[in-house]
């Protein structure tokens, strides 16, 4: 068996596949199920300081014609207190879990992190890029001061690495990475969903209850690959986690070649008949590819950047 282990800064995971935030990540049992399916690590649903019921339905639906999805869940989550209780089993099981967190005040970030530190996270993923998160979403990213202060705060309190998840709804995603990295971020996660909308022409109404939402899935893959490529060009020393439209080993490889050290997978869970095999299947295809090319996984990272 070829080794699929990959390094993200100081962290090492057994496969570059990571469960993306917001997908199957609210309960410990589903997170564990994904781990058993060959994933290297799992990101939890984004957790805030208080419980949040999110928007009414429809909040999510698929666009099969482009193997994509639309969502405006609105950062629904049980809040850090309840979530902490739910994740306690991991003190024994020790699965590699990254906690996605959000907030729009330093104090919130401090409180969330101080609580979750007790769970020995693999890392935190600071979500400042939700396109339907209202005042907790993209607006945080677009306020340079606030953004910088939240990353700094997270770094100050976290007992593990802090990753920052960025949005492609940007003039140049690398400018946000600049702020994140100079504020101490250990890795950059790209990309979150793109601002989008689908209108039903029979009822003449936007389908999502929140009207606007985020586009994920195959449609956005070339946008994610480009973001990772640009980030790697500018910050070759900062680990990058690629996200967006990954369904197959080919997709994973494309992101690695662009410069990602690992990848996250979300929407693909809706497009597979057998969720239990998604990870093992991709892992074994990755192994074949590496064997065929006679390369180690780490040698793929950034290899599409010539001279």
């Amino acid at each position: 068996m070829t080794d699929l282990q990959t390094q993200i800064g100081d962290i090492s995971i057994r496969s570059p596949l990571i469960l993306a935030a917001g997908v199957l990540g609210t309960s410990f049992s589903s997170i564990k199920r994904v781990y058993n399916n060959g994933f290297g690590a799992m990101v939890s649903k984004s957790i805030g300081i208080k419980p949040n019921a999110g928007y009414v339905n429809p909040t999510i639906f698929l666009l099969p014609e482009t193997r994509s999805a639309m969502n405006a869940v609105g950062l629904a989550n049980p809040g850090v207190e309840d979530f902490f209780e739910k994740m306690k089993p991991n003190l024994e099981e020790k699965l590699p879990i990254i906690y996605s967190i959000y907030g729009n005040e330093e104090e919130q970030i401090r409180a969330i992190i101080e609580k979750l530190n007790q769970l020995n996270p693999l890392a935190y993923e600071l979500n400042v890029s939700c396109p339907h998160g209202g005042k907790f979403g993209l607006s945080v990213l677009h306020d340079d001061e606030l953004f910088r202060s939240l990353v700094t705060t997270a770094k100050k309190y976290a007992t593990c690495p802090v990753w920052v998840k960025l949005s492609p709804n940007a003039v140049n995603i690398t400018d946000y990475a600049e702020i994140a990295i100079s504020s101490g971020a250990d890795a950059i996660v790209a990309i979150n969903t793109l601002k989008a909308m689908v209108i039903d022409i029979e009822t003449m109404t936007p389908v999502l209850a929140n009207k606007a939402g985020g586009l994920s899935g195959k449609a956005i893959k070339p946008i994610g690959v480009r973001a990772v490529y640009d980030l790697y060009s500018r910050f070759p020393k900062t680990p990058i986690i690629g996200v967006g439209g990954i369904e197959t080993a080919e997709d994973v490889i494309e992101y690695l070649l662009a410069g990602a050290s690992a990848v996250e997978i979300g929407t693909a869970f809706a497009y597979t008949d057998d969720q239990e095999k998604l990870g093992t299947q991709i892992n074994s295809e990755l192994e074949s590819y590496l064997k065929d090319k006679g390369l180690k996984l780490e040698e793929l990272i950034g290899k599409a950047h010539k001279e």
Partner: protein
Amino acid sequence: MNTKGLGRPIIREIVKIVEETELTKTFYFNGEGLFAKPGQFYMLWLPEIDEKPISACITNIEEGFIGLSIKKVGRFTEEIQQRKIGDKVGIRGPFGKGFNHEKGRKAIFIAGGIGIAPIRSIFDLLKKEQEELVLIYGAQTDSDLVFKEYFTQFTNNVTYCTDDGSFGYHGFPTDILRNFLEKEIKKGGELNYSIYGCGSELFLKAVLDLIASIDQSLLTHTQLSLADRYMRCGVGLCGSCIIDDTGLSVCKDGPVFTGEILAKTTDFGIYGRNPDGSKSKIQPHY
């Protein structure tokens, strides 16, 4: 995988409405592109109101329509009951895995309240193929029992139950099921039955416990359709409907599970999940 039916809501006009009881109406739609297997469900969208899971109930492929039977319990179900013929709703699906028709076994159907909706879908499939169909169907009161004349057409082994004794047996469907199974056991021989059930989760839990107490080996032949779960995506993505400790999603891995699997979960019949993902005790209702 086949992505048919996974997409955005398909808009359909209500073509017929049958008032089954005071609280329950059945809504009919052109079924093209929407036909489901028994036990699958849809996400039904009322634009600008909400979108909720509703079971496939009547599936008539020959005549090209489907019917959804809906009980008024809250905002969404009240809203739809105010809709008229010609009004438009959105339908996503069908979703989920549905019932597995166990050929060669006799069928017992057990339903509580509006849990009859998916039971009718599997009943309709089996009535074409099997002779012995046992239906045990309970509700709070007579006027909550739907499809009574319909079922009586196809089997004479129906027992209706009401909590208040206003129709049929005065008591719970589980009493009837217990009697039935115990009688069969006394007759000797194997309990060659498949049990198909739907109702509130507390009800289903009672059914499961009963069966487990009578014959553990029946659990693999017991298929219960969960209907007390909050759902968002319907496609196994969001995690809103996960049942601990298995990590299974009700929308994609279910909504029908075998008793064997349900017996392994720590949540079934005990904890539901709120829209924010937190859990709360399941409350009694039909």
